[in-house]
């Protein structure tokens, strides 16, 4: 009896969860892909690992040379 009630409770929760998930609004892949690409293009110039540094001196992790300004 208790087992049955708890199973029922559990199944109700599962269904409630599925209903919530089924009800969400979705956007077509073609649209989301355009948005991802736009975001990346808007931020490419700040992406040093992607674009590199304008000069190696700008790289804070460059190897230390013979002379350094502290």
């Amino acid at each position, binding site marked *: 009896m208790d087992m049955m009630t708890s199973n*029922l409770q559990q*199944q109700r929760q599962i269904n409630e969860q599925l209903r919530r*998930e089924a009800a969400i609004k*979705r956007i077509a*892949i073609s649209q989301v*892909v355009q948005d*991802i690409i736009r975001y990346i293009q808007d931020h490419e110039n700040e992406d040093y690992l992607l674009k590199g540094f304008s000069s190696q001196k700008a790289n804070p992790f*460059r190897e230390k040379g013979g002379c350094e300004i502290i």
Partner: protein
Amino acid sequence: MLEIKMSISENETESIELLTKEAEALKQKLEEERQKLNDVTLATVAERLEFINFLNNIKTRRHLKGHQSKVLCCDWCTDKRRIVSSSQDGKIIVWDAFSNNKEFAVSTPSTWVMACAYAPSTTHVACGGMDNKVTVYPISHEDDNVKKKTVVGTHTSFVSCCMFPNSDQQILTGSGDSTAALWDVETGQLLQSFHGHSSDVMAVDLAPSEIGNTFVSGSADKTVLVWDMRTGQYVQSFEGHLSDINSVRFHPSGDAIGTGSDDATCRLFDLRADKEVAVYSKESIIFGSNTVDFSVSGRLLFAGYNDYTINVWDTLKCVRVSLLFGHENRVSSVRVSPDGTAFASASWDTTLRIWA
């Protein structure tokens, strides 16, 4: 009396049957809805973009040596130069990645410190592991750090990951007890626990929005769940991986999630399409991926693998653009620095490397 019980029980059997049927129908509807909007693939749209060709410059710039055993986790400080790392031998070390110096070390009473995180204020670090606890240590050079530690939370199994969402006040943890949990640092109070996974939670990440009420978790149950931190309920679930998920990271746009898995693939799931949009894999890659992180634009995905390598993926064209060698054992953690100038990798070879 017995008859009444019987009839209740029959009713319940009936409604369980009904509910199960409804659940099946909902699952089918969910899948149909997702497929309906599956009109193109990411890689096809990305064909018109230029190939990436600057990556040849990325190499090891620093090699951080000092741990006695496997390095299991690392995290950047918000100052963009310090890193905290944790090891199987129970030690946490804070490094100055500019100078290679060890600035601070503490021996925790535990082994397998699988998780560590730098507090946003830079004054504390959090860690957790096989002791099932998440503990906060102050970073100071006095001798009694171990005494000044604060145990913030306790799970019923190992702590696999931890992070400070937005401030020093709270810690978010993932655990082998299949839950994630949000803790108040000062009081040690459990603010919210997150139930939904059916196996170990291996990774969590916070959405990069200022409100910060959404986080994502990856689990050994092969699913990714997207949570509402306020309600404690998950709002989306993603399937696709064929084995344990070891790592989850939000794309910097906040609209997608990158994952790494024991199935030797990394994937991209889009929140608004409610669907997997890319798989990053190659026939020659047969070992699991432990850790992933995005470059600041989100174009690159850095992924550390059990075959000691780091693969760099073009997230749009879905091709590998670089393969980085250096570590001599599994790569356990890869983290891009806050300003995107470098990334750190931690390995079972007992060292960390800074790549730029």
